[in-house]
């Protein structure tokens, strides 16, 4: 039985718009069921507030369409220990930040997919 991991999204950089989380997710995959993702970002930033959204489907993810998106962590919840999301369903999770510019999002920055696996193998 594998111990669930706690994974800091973006490593020491944390969660901020414009960062290539597609690449980060590829390097940190696979995610497993019951892993916890931690989104850490300043809670009272005067420059650019951050947030964590869950997009509803693959199309929304591809096209950066936030209609129907669910706000998981608002601007103040990333402070301190950060905002935690447990991957407890065997479905793709489409995480994205609504901040930053649209082109970044289309290019694969500011968002990533986590597809939890039940397997204990590593690849």
């Amino acid at each position, binding site marked *: 039985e594998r111990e669930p991991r706690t994974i800091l999204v973006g490593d020491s950089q944390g969660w901020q718009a414009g960062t290539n989380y597609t690449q980060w997710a*590829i390097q940190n995959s696979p995610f497993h069921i019951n892993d916890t993702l931690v989104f850490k970002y300043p809670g009272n930033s005067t420059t650019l507030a951050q947030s964590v959204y869950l997009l509803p489907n693959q199309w929304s993810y591809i096209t950066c369409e936030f209609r129907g998106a669910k706000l998981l962590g608002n601007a103040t919840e990333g402070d301190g220990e950060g905002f935690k999301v447990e991957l407890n369903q065997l479905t793709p999770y489409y995480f994205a930040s609504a901040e930053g510019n649209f082109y970044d999002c289309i290019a694969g920055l500011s968002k990533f997919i986590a597809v939890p696996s039940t397997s204990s193998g590593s690849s």
Partner: protein
Amino acid sequence: MYGGDEVSAIVIDLGSHTCKAGYAGEDAPKAVFPSVVGAIDQMDVDEADNGEKNPGSAPESNNNNVRNADSDKAKGKRKLYVGSQSLGYRRDHMEVLSPFKDGVVADWDIVDSIWDHAFRECLLIDPKEHPMLLAEPSSNSQQQRERTVEHMFEKYKAPALFLAKNAVLTSFASGRATSVVVDGGGGSTTVAPVHDGYVLQKAVATSPIGGEFLTDCLMKSLESKGIMIKPRYSFRRKEIRPGEFQTVDLEFPNTTESYKLFSQRVIASDIKECVCRAPDTPYDESAYSNIPMTSYELPDGQTVEIGADRFKIPDVLFNPSLVQSIPGMESFAEIAPSVRGLPQMVIESINKCDVDIRRELFNSILLAGGTASMQQLKERLEKDLLEESPQAARVKVLASGNATERRFSVWIGGSILASLGSFQQMWFSKSEYEEHGASYIQRKCP
């Protein structure tokens, strides 16, 4: 998870009539070639390849189509000839075969030979070095998907794969998350509603009337007027005086009927594309009986005059029962009454969707495919739908881009999609296949 170096993905749209293949990020496919292949039973191959005379066509170098012994045994040893060049060269006993039956892959050896041709002879790539995005029919079954996955990973050693529905790719190319895609291909016509990037399976409608069917109607109609289309291989033009030619018929008794038909269709298809256009209103025999003729010169020098057929043939898409009035099409007369015309297909499809999205669907009807690029088809469809749709609906039929973009809209959607930076995380990687098996395709490419 695929995270390889940045190499171009390959995008392939194996349609019922033509296969489109090329690199992601480009504006158009690099290769477009027939989705049918020539096939000769192996025992006939030596004879067929013995450098027989074949005027009007430059013989190509002999390329071996090596396959494993098991599939040779299973299929009774065939040699397959793939691509426009190979199919343009007549061979004794060569049948023309399609990998599809009723829109579903029935012969995977032929699919393999088509993919091989695309990779090694058209794109000149090694498939194990490139992720593959494959377009698939909107109502592809899970079984067919898994078979495709296994082929790509086991036989071609692809590093990563993605399967995307034709209608979703067309919708994506047009920038719409919700639409009704009317795809007029060679082998069939499909109407598929897309909502938020997903095909609504229960509402997908398919008709066997596609471009090829219209071509056959035109051929039969011309034959009933005494015009026989001579395949290019069946004659030679001799210059008897400067500027004056005489056609000499050539005899090739070992040519198969399927190859003869294929060759005639190529010419009839060109006639169709040159002269046909959808009529403004339903075709009426008396109203069109006296319209001016249009001339078309056949390859053998014969000139044909085409009149009412210019409008009658395309109208079969809208009114399939017209087939019954075309001599020689009697074999289709029985099923014609049960086939619905294009406007009915669209309306019935939309009516099977949730009431809340019907308005949006009527407002975004997208045309795709070569047959849907026919002149005046957009205007006619929009007009018919305005007349037959609910009063409140605002009907908008969209034919984005030029005719080429419409013809290749599925491929172009795949090209855009696979070149996005965010797409890199969406590939179904070989390691995921090895870990989870082929059925994982449903999770990765819903």
